[in-house]
């Protein structure tokens, strides 16, 4: 395409649309934040458990979108993996396994509403106070045109992973880091892993199929007796 033509058409477009300059970052933030809030309200207002789970998926997905928008890709992917993909699938799975009627609905009593609202308002107050209280969070990155200029380099998940292995590369400036138990999060990480493993083994032990201690011959004899009885009954 001719470059001059491109420039003329481009500047024509520019004059037409230069009146309104959309800040995409802000707009997507508004979209995701609105979706998260609206879906969270929908979770509270629905009676059907599976619909609640569906709204919760949308709400948590929008939250993950907010994380991606903020450049915290690891946290966003974690949110999708653990909450949306793991917890909620298990939740719906549990509902399907245990439901007696086709569509389970739950009616919340009045006093639960009151209690829950009080709790929610308290939590909201604490969160709002915390989010406004930190001075460093108030100065947002300067917004230019469609994007946000970052002063820091692109955040990466690597320092986080290294910190879990006991190497705090973010605190150290010497270049060469030696691992030690105290500097990073190795010890808490290991404790949490062992704890989860214990929980898994315990759950498997509790849920395992109970085997009868009776010898096999007796068992088969008992079964044949049962069959005889059934035949007589029929």
């Amino acid at each position, binding site marked *: 395409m001719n*470059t001059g033509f*491109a*420039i003329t*058409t*481009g*500047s024509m*477009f*520019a004059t037409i*649309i230069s009146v309104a*300059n*959309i*800040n*995409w*970052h802000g707009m997507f933030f508004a979209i995701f934040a609105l979706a998260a809030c609206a879906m969270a309200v929908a979770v509270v207002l629905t009676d*059907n458990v*599976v*619909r609640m789970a*569906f709204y919760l*998926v949308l709400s948590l997905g929008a939250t993950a979108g907010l994380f*991606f*928008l903020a*450049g915290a*890709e*690891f946290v*966003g*992917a974690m949110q*999708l*993996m653990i909450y*949306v*993909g*793991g917890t909620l*699938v298990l939740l*719906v*799975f549990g*509902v*399907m*396994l245990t439901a007696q009627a086709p*569509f389970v609905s739950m009616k919340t009593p009045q006093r639960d509403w009151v209690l829950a609202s009080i709790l929610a308002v308290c939590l909201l107050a604490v969160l709002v106070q915390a989010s406004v209280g930190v001075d460093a969070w108030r100065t947002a990155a300067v917004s230019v*045109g*469609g*994007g*946000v*200029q*970052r002063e*820091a*380099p*692109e955040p*990466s*998940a*690597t320092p986080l992973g*290294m910190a879990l292995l006991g*190497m705090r*590369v*973010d*605190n*150290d400036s010497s270049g*060469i*880091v*030696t*691992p030690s138990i105290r500097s990073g999060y190795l010890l808490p990480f290991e404790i949490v892993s062992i704890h989860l493993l214990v929980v898994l083994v315990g759950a498997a032990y509790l849920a395992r199929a109970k085997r009868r201690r009776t010898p096999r011959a007796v068992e088969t004899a008992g079964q044949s007796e049962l069959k005889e009885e059934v035949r007589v009954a029929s």
Partner: protein
Amino acid sequence: MADFLIHTGGLPDWIAWAITASLAAFFILNVIAGGALAFIWAERKIAARIQDRLGPTRTGGKFGWLQSLADGIKLLTKEDLMPDGADGLLFRLAPYVSFCASFAAFIALPFAFDFVGQRLNVGVFFVIAVLGLEVFGVILAGYASASKWSLFGAMREAAQVVSYEVPLGMCVVVPVMLAGSMDLVTIGEKQAGWFFQWYLFHDPFTFITFWIYVTCAVASVNRAPFDLAEAESELVAGFHTEYSGLRWSFFFMAEYGSMFLVSALAAILFLGGWNGPVPVASLLGLSDGSGDTTGYFVRLAGCANLMTKATLGVLIMMWVRWTLPRLRIDQVMTTCLKYCTPIAAVMFVGAMLWTLALPGGFFRGLGRPAGEIREGWLLGPGGMSLQVQKNGEAPPSSSRFEQSESPVSQVGL
């Protein structure tokens, strides 16, 4: 491309970014939709040939190549039915959930060195996480249909996908560990050169890991021999028994989209990504990183490379589907928990030890480009002494890149 529009086209920033982003979305959408059309036709032909039939032959002249298009038009005109007892909202939305999950995973998938919707430094993790969401649409569909066949299908699918995510994740960790990054672009870049630089041939452990990955990937996209969720001999059509018309076809677009996605992921993680078996471009002295037109064409060739590999992967999945019988649910679980997971764990440890012992890989020093092993996050041969970047510098893996200033502007098509 956004820069091109701003500087050459004279467009304001926001509209340039909007155009760039929608172009990327348009391309990805067409990869899924066009891919589904082609793959459905291929599936019918392959199934027919394996069963000693001809398959579609008439529509569109030779080979019935317009068959999928005709099917699409038929699906568009079908009545959109919904059972009386169904949960209307969830029943209507479930296909879109599946399709959106499949579509969203493509965002982080690089098609060549710089051809990626949004380069994420946790790309692998993102793709695996989003791929796991597709099951949610299936579960919702099965539950909301208010039909016992659908419910059985959905329950099987949930159990299967949740179990198979474990070995799948373990297999994916192996190339991530070898590359020292979760960024798919970096992982592909590290395998540049001859085909023995591919992680498939890195050591015996990665070779076995690849086959475990293939098994788990087939299971996680719900294809035969693991297609218990739609076992047509037992469950009519499983989770999509009650669906018809366009909504039904959305499930299939999602399925073929994820098949292509896991194949492309396998290609990037194990089969060298967009690097061909013979490094033609670097032998000719070209580089895919250069900003001029030659670099663009090299990247285009890389894109074709990756597409070929991924398509081959999909064709192999079809071949497997029409060859092997369906497993029972207990056999599916046994395959996952008693075989895939332990083998994947052992392979992970094995690959780790191998990397410590032979840091250069199996074919050490054979044709590895100079400067390939960069300083940075790699474990040195001396064990745990690590050279790391100083605080505040860009990670070395992205040094070929200009760090862009906005999430939207990273659409590099």
